[in-house]
């Protein structure tokens, strides 16, 4: 017989509820599947057919996970997430991108550190602006009641988006190079990945974090002292 508890746990992994509540949901759904399966077996279905019909109770587990989360946490949860993470995150992303484009239009040249193929480009005015962008992201997220994690993700959101773009771009590039029949030297690709990673992700990420972390700490300290004063 199938281990329904294990199956539900696996299929609903990542359900963003606290541990006790999540265990309760897993146990309840597993019990339902177990009862359903047993009723089918009692009706004379083979083990295999009964398992298949029982599994058909849920056609889309990620959708069920989302619906359970919505039902348990309510619409407010999505609204909060929007204000604590997505709006500040996208704002930091847009601001950092617009500022970088403006600097390029104004003719600011990136500083080159290192020699030859290992040279890394740094745009100092942009990096300095990221301190403020990161601080703004953390401030907006913290003001909306975001946790430390949400505030820091909102701060470094521009580099998270860049990381995703890099991770997507490199395999596509390799694929295209292979299609057009050009030999790809993986050491060059790895070096480029590292170089661009440092210049566009690691250093800007650190700048955003340096801007965001103190603001969040300051904000959370102030709000906790206000709570103490009210209490």
């Amino acid at each position, binding site marked *: 017989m199938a281990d329904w508890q294990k199956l539900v746990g696996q299929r609903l992994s990542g359900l963003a509820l606290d541990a006790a509540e999540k265990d*309760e949901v897993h146990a309840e759904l597993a*019990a*339902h599947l177990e009862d359903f399966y047993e*009723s089918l077996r009692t009706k004379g279905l083979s083990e295999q057919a009964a398992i298949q019909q029982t599994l058909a109770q*849920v*056609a889309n587990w990620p959708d069920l996970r989302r619906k*359970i989360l*919505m039902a*348990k946490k*309510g619409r407010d949860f999505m609204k909060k997430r929007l204000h604590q993470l997505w709006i500040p995150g996208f704002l930091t992303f847009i601001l950092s991108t617009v500022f970088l484009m403006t600097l390029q239009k104004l003719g600011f040249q990136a500083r080159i550190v290192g020699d030859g193929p290992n040279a890394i480009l740094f745009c100092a005015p942009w990096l300095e602006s990221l301190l403020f962008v990161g601080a703004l992201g953390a401030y907006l997220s913290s003001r909306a009641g975001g946790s430390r994690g949400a505030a820091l993700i909102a701060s470094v959101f521009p580099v998270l988006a860049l990381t995703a773009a890099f991770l997507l771009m490199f395999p596509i590039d390799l694929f295209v190079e292979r299609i057009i029949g050009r030999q790809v030297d993986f050491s060059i690709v790895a070096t480029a990945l590292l170089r661009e990673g440092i210049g566009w992700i690691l250093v800007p990420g650190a700048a955003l974090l340096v801007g965001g972390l103190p603001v969040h700490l300051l904000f959370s300290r102030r709000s906790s002292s206000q709570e103490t004063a009210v209490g």
Partner: protein
Amino acid sequence: MIGPGIKRGTAELAVLSVLEEGPLHGYELARRIEQQTKGALRFTLAALYPMLYRMEQRRWVRGSWETGGNGRRRRCYRLTAEGKKKLSPIRQEWAELFHALRRLTKVPHG
């Protein structure tokens, strides 16, 4: 096509009406609805639990773990006073809708 609002309303009415008869756990609730509607209304696990959790959040039902005669623990749902209060206007709305549709379509009583 029946819209999601109508579907949800029907489902809520069905669940609240069956729970009015007494507390039940999810599987038994789904089975009872299917049985009483002669298979016209069927709830899969995926349809039932998000709705039960939503109704629990609204405090229309309350769930609690209970051990059955076979020694198995199941989460049983019972109708709250708020749920009972909610059931009456929902019933009224649906009665009006069915009455209007019957007049419109001239479908005789079942």
